[in-house]
C-alpha cells in the first residue's frame, strides 16, 4: 500500500462514466435526437459565399451596420426560397452565406448594395396570403407612425444609379416576359388595370395562370403599376426580386411591409440624405420615438416631400414610405410640413424603435459588398471529401495504434482504450455542439483534419506519462510506487503542454476565417478532452494495472526490460560501492 493511500480508481472511472452517460443521455433524449454531427457544406455539398462589406469611405462598417447588412442579405437569401440557409457575420467586415444543396447559383448574386429611399405612397392594398413560405420578417411598430413639424420649401431628387449587377447572365427583359404572358395584348390588359379587384373575373384565367408562373426576376421588369395591381404577384414574390430591383429613384415602384402592398412614387429623398437617426423615450407622451435629421440639401428635399404629402387629401398619399432594399421599413403618415428634425411615433417599443433607427442609420451610409469567395461543392464531391477525411483518420489512427502496441505493449492497449474513449466523448460533444440550440457547430473537412492532428496530442500525453513511469522503474521502484510518482510529475508537464496547444488553437480560432475556424475548434476541443481522459481514465487504469504482477512482465509491458536493466545496474553499482569500501 502506498503511503498516501491507494488511488481510488473506481471513483475516477465512475466520474468518467457519469460524464459519458450524461453526454449520451443528452444526445439521445434532447434536441432533435440526431445521432450524427452537423456536417459542413464541403462534406454534404452546397454553396458558400463570403461577402466583405465596405463603406463608401473605405472604413470598416460599424458592428450595428454590419448586422443590418446581414439581415438584409438574409432577407434576400430567404427570398430565393432556399432551405436551411445560414447568414452569419465573420470578423468586422465579412458576411458568410451558406446554403446546402445543389443549384443555388442565385445565391452568388445577392451582393448588390442595399439602398434606402423615401417615397410617397400612391396606393396600398392588403397582401394576398402567400402559399410560399413567408419571406421577410419586417420589424418595427404595427401602428401607423406619424411625423410632425413645420414648414419650409425647395428641393429635387438626385438619382444615384443602383448597383444592378445582373449585367451578365442576362436578366429577363420586358419583351421576354410579355411574350410569356401571351403577347402585347396581355400586357396591355394588365396595364389598364387600376385596381387589384379587376382581375378577379373569369375571363382573365389564362393570363392569371401565366402570371403565377413568373419568377421574381421576371416580375421585377414589369411596370410598377402592374406589379401592384395583380394580386397573384404576392409580397413573397416581390420580396424575392433581385436586389436593387426597386432602387432607381426616378421610377415608381411596388414594395411590401408585413401586411401591405404599396405602390410608391419616385424617390424624392435618398437614404444618403439622412445625416443621423436616433431613438429615445419621450417621457411627456410616454412613448418611444425615432428621430431623423437630414443633411443640408437633403433637408430641403425632405421638406418638399412632406409638404407635398401633407397637402394631399387621400389618406394613402399622406404617407411616406421608407424603403430599404426591397422592403418597406416604415410608412408614417405626414402630419405637417417638416423643416427640422423629424419624429416618427406610433406603437414602438424599445426594440422596434431601435431597429428602425438602426436601419435609417444604415441607409444613411449604405454598405457595398464585394464577393470575396464563392464556392459550390457538389454533393458527390462532398461525400468523396468526407470519405477521404475519414479514411485519412483511419490510416493515421491505425499507424499510431501499431506504433504504441509495438513500443509500449500493455500500456499501448491502455493508450488505445484511452483514444477510443476520447473518441466517444468527442463524438458526443460534436453532436451536441452541432445542435441548433447550442452553438450549431458544423464539422468541416478542416475540422476532421483537426481531429486527426489532435490524435498526436492526445497520444503524446500518454507518452509523457509512460516515459516518466519508465524513469521511475529504472530507478528501481516497484510498479506500485512508481505510478503515483510518475503521475505527479507527468501531470505538470501534460498540463503545461496542453495549455500551449490550447492557446495555439484558441488564437487560431479567434483570428481565422472560414474553414480554418473548424480546424482550430476541433484541435482546441480535443486538447481539453485529452486532459479529461488522461486524468479520469489513463492514470487510474495504469494505477490499477500496476497492482497486478503481469504489469512488470517484460513480454507484456515493455517496462519489464527497463526494470531488469535497472536491477542489473543496481547490482553493478553495489559491486562498485563494495570495491570502494574495500
Amino acid at each position, binding site marked *: 500500500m502506498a503511503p498516501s493511500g491507494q488511488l481510488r480508481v473506481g471513483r475516477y472511472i465512475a466520474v468518467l462514466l457519469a460524464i459519458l452517460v450524461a453526454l449520451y443521455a443528452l444526445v439521445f433524449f434532447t434536441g432533435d435526437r440526431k445521432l450524427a454531427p452537423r456536417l459542413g457544406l464541403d462534406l454534404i455539398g452546397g454553396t458558400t459565399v463570403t461577402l*466583405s462589406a465596405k463603406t463608401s469611405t473605405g472604413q470598416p462598417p460599424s458592428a450595428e451596420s454590419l448586422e443590418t447588412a446581414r439581415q438584409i442579405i438574409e432577407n434576400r437569401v430567404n427570398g430565393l426560397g432556399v432551405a436551411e440557409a445560414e447568414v452569419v457575420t465573420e470578423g468586422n467586415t465579412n458576411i458568410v452565406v451558406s446554403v446546402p444543396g445543389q443549384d443555388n*447559383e442565385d445565391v452568388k*448574386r445577392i451582393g448588390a448594395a442595399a439602398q434606402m429611399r423615401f417615397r410617397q405612397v400612391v396606393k396600398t392594398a392588403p397582401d394576398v396570403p402567400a402559399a410560399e413560405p413567408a419571406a421577410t420578417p419586417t420589424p418595427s411598430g404595427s401602428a401607423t407612425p406619424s411625423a410632425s413639424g413645420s414648414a419650409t420649401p425647395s428641393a429635387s431628387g438626385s438619382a444615384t444609379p443602383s448597383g444592378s*449587377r445582373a*449585367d*451578365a447572365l442576362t436578366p429577363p427583359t420586358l419583351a421576354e416576359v410579355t411574350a410569356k404572358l401571351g403577347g402585347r395584348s396581355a400586357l396591355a390588359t394588365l396595364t389598364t388595370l387600376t385596381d387589384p379587384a379587376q382581375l378577379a373575373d373569369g375571363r382573365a384565367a389564362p393570363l392569371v395562370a401565366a402570371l403565377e408562373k413568373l419568377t421574381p426576376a421576371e416580375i421585377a421588369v414589369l411596370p410598377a403599376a402592374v406589379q401592384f395591381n395583380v394580386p397573384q404577384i404576392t409580397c413573397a414574390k416581390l420580396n424575392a426580386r433581385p436586389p436593387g430591383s426597386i432602387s432607381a429613384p426616378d421610377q415608381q415602384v411596388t414594395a411590401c411591409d408585413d401586411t401591405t402592398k404599396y405602390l410608391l412614387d419616385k424617390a424624392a429623398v435618398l437614404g444618403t440624405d439622412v445625416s443621423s437617426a436616433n431613438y429615445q423615450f419621450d417621457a411627456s407622451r410616454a412613448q418611444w420615438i425615432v428621430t431623423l435629421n437630414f443633411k443640408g440639401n437633403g433637408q430641403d428635399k425632405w421638406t418638399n416631400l412632406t409638404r407635398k404629402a401633407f397637402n394631399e387629401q387621400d389618406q394613402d398619399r399622406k404617407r411616406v414610405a421608407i424603403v430599404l432594399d426591397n422592403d418597406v421599413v416604415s410608412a408614417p403618415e405626414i402630419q405637417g410640413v417638416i423643416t427640422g428634425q423629424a419624429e416618427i411615433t406610433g406603437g414602438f417599443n424599445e426594440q422596434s424603435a431601435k431597429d428602425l433607427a438602426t436601419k435609417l442609420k444604415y441607409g444613411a451610409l449604405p454598405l457595398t459588398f*464585394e464577393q*470575396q*469567395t*464563392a*464556392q*459550390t*461543392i*457538389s454533393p*458527390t*464531391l462532398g*461525400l468523396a*471529401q468526407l470519405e*477521404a*477525411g475519414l479514411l*485519412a483518420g*483511419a490510416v*493515421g*489512427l491505425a*499507424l*499510431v495504434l501499431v506504433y504504441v502496441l509495438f513500443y509500449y505493449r500493455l500500456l499501448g492497449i491502455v493508450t488505445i482504450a484511452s483514444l477510443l474513449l476520447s473518441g466517444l466523448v468527442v463524438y458526443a460533444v460534436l453532436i451536441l455542439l452541432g445542435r441548433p440550440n447550442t452553438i450549431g457547430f458544423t464539422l468541416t*473537412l*478542416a475540422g476532421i*483534419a483537426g481531429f486527426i*492532428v489532435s490524435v498526436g496530442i492526445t497520444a*503524446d500525453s500518454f*507518452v*509523457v506519462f509512460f*516515459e516518466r513511469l519508465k524513469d521511475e522503474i*529504472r*530507478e528501481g521502484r516497484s510498479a506500485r510506487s512508481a505510478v503515483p510518482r510518475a503521475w505527479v510529475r507527468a501531470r*505538470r*508537464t501534460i498540463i*503545461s*503542454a496542453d*495549455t*500551449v*496547444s490550447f*492557446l*495555439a*488553437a484558441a*488564437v*487560431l480560432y*479567434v*483570428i*481565422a*476565417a*472560414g*474553414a*480554418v475556424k473548424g*480546424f482550430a475548434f476541433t*484541435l482546441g476541443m480535443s486538447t481539453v478532452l485529452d486532459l479529461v481522459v488522461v486524468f479520469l481514465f489513463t492514470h487510474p487504469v495504469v494505477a490499477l494495472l500496476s497492482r497486478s504482477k503481469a504489469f512488470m512482465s517484460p513480454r507484456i509491458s515493455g517496462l519489464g526490460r527497463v526494470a531488469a536493466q535497472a536491477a542489473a545496474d543496481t547490482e553493478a*553499482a553495489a559491486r562498485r560501492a563494495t*570495491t*570502494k569500501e574495500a
Partner: protein
Amino acid sequence: MASVLRRMYDGNGAFDFVGRRRTWYVIALVCLLIALASFLIRGFNFGIEFSGGNSFVIPAKNGVTLSEASKVVADAGAEVVSAQEIRGTEHSFLVRTAGLSEDASTRVKFAVADTTGIPAGEISDNRVSPSWGSQITNKALLGLVVFLVLVTAYLAFRYEWKMAVGAMAALLHDLLITAGVYSIVGFEVTPSTVIGLLTILGFSLYDTVVVFDKVSENTKGILGGSRYTYSEAANLAINQTLMRSINTSLIALLPVAGLLFIGAGLLGAGTLKDLGLVLFVGMAAGAYSSIFLATPVVSGLKEREPRYAALRSRVLAKRTSDAGRRGAAVAAPARVGGGTAVLDEAAGEDGVAGSRGARPAGRPQPRKRAGGNPGRPSGSKRRR
C-alpha cells in the same frame, strides 16, 4: 546502430547536445540563410486563395478526359492556368483558371455543363477575389503576433524569460525552415498551409515545453553543489526526454502521415494534402529545434549569469582536483561515490530533482571508465 538506439532508450545523457551548440547554431543559420535566399529569389507559389482566381471540379463522367475538361473550360471563355486529376472515391478533374467575374464564373459552369452533358449541380466551383488573399494574410500575421506574445508571456511566467527566448528562437527556426522548404520545392501555398503553419507553432512549443520542464527540474538544485554546470544538467534533461521527444514527434507525425497519404496520394489536392504537407515538414523542423536549438539557447543565456558562471568554475576546479586524485589513487570508481554524495546534498534542497538526477548521473560511469574520459559531457572542456 543498436547501441545508439539503446543509448536513446536509456536516456542516460550520452549525447552531447548542449556542448556542441555552436555546431547546431551554424547548421540552423545556414538553413535559414538558404531559406531567406529562396524567399527573395524564388518567392512562393501562391494558390488561388491568395492571388485570386477560379477553379472548377468536373466529374470524370460521360467520357470526359483531363484534356477535354481543360478544353471545355477554355472554350467557355476562361483562361486555364492548370488542370489536374483528382482520384479517390470520386474521380474528377480540377481545372484552375485566371480570375473571372461573379457572373462569368457561373456562365462558364453552365457552358461546361451544356458541352459535357454533366448536370451543373455536379460541377463544383470556387471563386476567390484578388483581395481575399490579403485579408487572410493579415489575419494570419495578426494571429502569429498574438500567439507569440501570449506564449512568450506564458513561458516567462511559467518558467523564466530566458526559456521564453529559447522557445521563440526554436519557433522562428521552424517557421522559416518550413516556409523555406515551401519556397524551394515550390509547393502551393493555400490558406490551409498558413493554418498548418500556425498549428506547427503549437506543436513545436509543446515539444519544447516538455524538455524545459525537465531542464528546470534538473537544474533546480545544482547551485548547491559543484558536480554539474548548468549546460550539463540541461543536456542531461534533453537526453532524458529524448526518447519522449522522438516518440512524440513520431506519434504526431503518424496521423499527419495518414492525412498526407490520403490527401496527396489518393486525392492529389485539397485541404487534407495542404495541411498534411505543411504539418509534416513543420513537425520535422520542430522536432529538430526543440532538441538542438531551444535548450542550447537557454543554456547559453544561463551560463552568462554570474552564479552559473561561478558554478562552472567550481565544477571545473573540482574536476581538475578529482583527476589529480584519481591519477594518484588509480581507483576510478571513487568518482561515482563522490558524485552521488554531491547530488544528495542537492536533494536536501529539492529532494525530487536531486534524487532523479542521481540515477542517470551514475549510470554512464562504466562507459566513461572504459573510455577513460574524465568529466561528463565532453563539450564542456572544449569550450574553455
